């Protein structure tokens, strides 16, 4: 590669990083200015000490974990089965999983409220547990595209059909094949889908607000509208969380490369 190409590469990369990090630096700098004239962590201390922050944040973490569990249970067997036995259905399934990306969340919520309101056949919105469950379902739908894509990409790196046949000829049944052959080989992909789900659930606003659940997204919004410095500190915290998730994805991806020949 010529020096010229290498240079162009670095400039593009720096530009891209700048695109994201300059706003962030501005944010961070401002968030440290809560005490007049000097830099301080006052805004951060105030937020972390806020019981509402603690409550909403832990609520959202629990919801994220539930969503991830739902997602894995639905997506892994489906994606496996579609790849193995119904390749003709792949475009349809892919189409289905793309829907949540383009249907505004608000449509999903209106639909749910209408279906499960207190006077319906299954009055989920009538109880707290029911509403929580509904929220988790909503989140699962929102996260579906990412989870499915991740798992499907993971499945693409292995030869599902031949590995399955090899395991069958060695005497393995379906349960053994799924747990001992397929799952271990797509684990990195599943984890990367899980981290993405986590980041999305933590930041989500519309669903939680419309179902009136005490999640982190609406809290972020509320603080943003009413306080001077705290929203910026919160943004930095939110960014740090997503950053950590992305870092974990990268780590997992790198780890998975040790387990495979270049594909």
């Amino acid at each position, binding site marked *: 590669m010529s020096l010229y190409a290498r240079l162009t590469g670095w400039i593009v990369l720096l530009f891209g990083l700048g695109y994201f990090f300059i706003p962030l630096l501005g944010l961070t700098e401002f968030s440290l200015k809560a005490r007049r004239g000097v830099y301080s962590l006052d805004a951060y201390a105030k937020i972390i000490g806020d019981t509402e922050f603690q409550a909403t944040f832990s609520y959202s973490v629990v919801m994220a974990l539930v969503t991830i569990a739902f997602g894995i249970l639905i997506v892994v067997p489906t994606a496996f089965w579609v790849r193995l036995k119904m390749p003709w259905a792949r475009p349809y399934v892919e189409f289905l999983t793309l829907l949540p990306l383009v249907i505004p969340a608000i449509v999903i919520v209106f639909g749910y409220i209408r279906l499960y309101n207190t006077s319906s056949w299954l009055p989920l919105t009538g109880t707290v547990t029911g509403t929580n469950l509904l929220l988790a379902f909503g989140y699962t739908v929102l996260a579906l595209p990412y989870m499915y894509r991740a798992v499907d990409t993971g499945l693409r790196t292995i030869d599902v059909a031949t590995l399955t046949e*090899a*395991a069958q000829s060695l005497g393995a049944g379906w349960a053994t094949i799924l747990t001992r052959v397929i799952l271990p080989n797509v684990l990195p992909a599943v984890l990367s889908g899980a981290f993405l789900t986590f980041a999305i659930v933590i930041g989500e606003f519309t669903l939680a607000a419309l179902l009136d659940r005490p999640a982190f997204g609406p809290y972020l919004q509320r603080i943003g509208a009413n306080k001077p410095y705290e929203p910026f500190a919160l943004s930095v915290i939110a960014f740090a969380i997503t950053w950590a998730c992305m870092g974990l994805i990268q780590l997992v991806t790198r780890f998975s490369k040790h387990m495979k020949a270049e594909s």
Partner: protein
Amino acid sequence: MPYLEIARLEKSFGANRVVTDFNLGVEQGEFISLLGPSGCGKTTVLRMVAGFERPSSGAIRIGSEDVVGKRPNQRNIGMVFQAYALFPNLTVAENVGFGLKIKGARRDEITARVAEMLALIGLPDLGARYPFQLSGGQQQRVALARALAPKPRVLLLDEPLSALDAKVRVSLRNEIRAIQRDLGITTIFVTHDQEEALSISDRIVVMNAGIADQVGTPFEIYNRPTTRFVANFVGQLNLFKADDAGRIGGVAVGQGDFAARPEAVHLGREAESDIVLPATVEEVHFLGSVIRVTAAAAGARIALDTFNRPDMPPPAVGSAVELSLSSRDLIPLK
């Protein structure tokens, strides 16, 4: 009675019939090749024996038990795939031991059998490696060991050498044959490469459009092909047409078309040859040990093979030569 018996096997995908009235008996310990061009149904036959496809009709018996109704994981058949298909998350030793673990064998039994298998394939020290750390040839040997470890009744090889380099392909095919002889395991080998099939089989089934055209030893298949397809697909062929009086080069051979292998035609006159044809050299291909010369004679293009001789360079293109062959080496074509 043969150990593995396939009787009146048929398979259609929708309106497309890919295997028609396939019959084959394989003796215990025999090495059978299914040879044919792509799409001839050879892989489908193998997959029906393995249980991955369900026959439209017909029977498959192993040791006189009909296995058609059984699932693949109940048949106790070893299979080696073109794409190796090693489990990427398991070490070589875990791969080889997979079948035994599924069967619920004790850990020390598994360890012993895995060591035995790795020694058999000549990779005793690679048990702790992962598949991606091995070369293609090594991976395919491990796949063979994995298929053999649970002592299957039949070993199926689905083009196991196609993904490998030419040199590795030759050495591994000899190794597979040696191991198969050692263990005396009944084996079916699918390939589209005629040299591969000729070199390692006890018997060959030449398939064409879903039908078994000819079954026989490599020597029979090559020297006494019974159909035009077999004559053409296995080995190179020169076509000779007898004249109206039933002669070629003045020698009476009978009416019709005849084939002669390139090694049956000689450059210059040979003592045993009764047919002599004047010819012009058109192409000379130096292939290493063999030199293939293409010459125009009697209105046809005749290919002949001659061994390289360091003291005699190949004939020049355009030079006039004599070709000779024995009328006994002519194969009548139906």
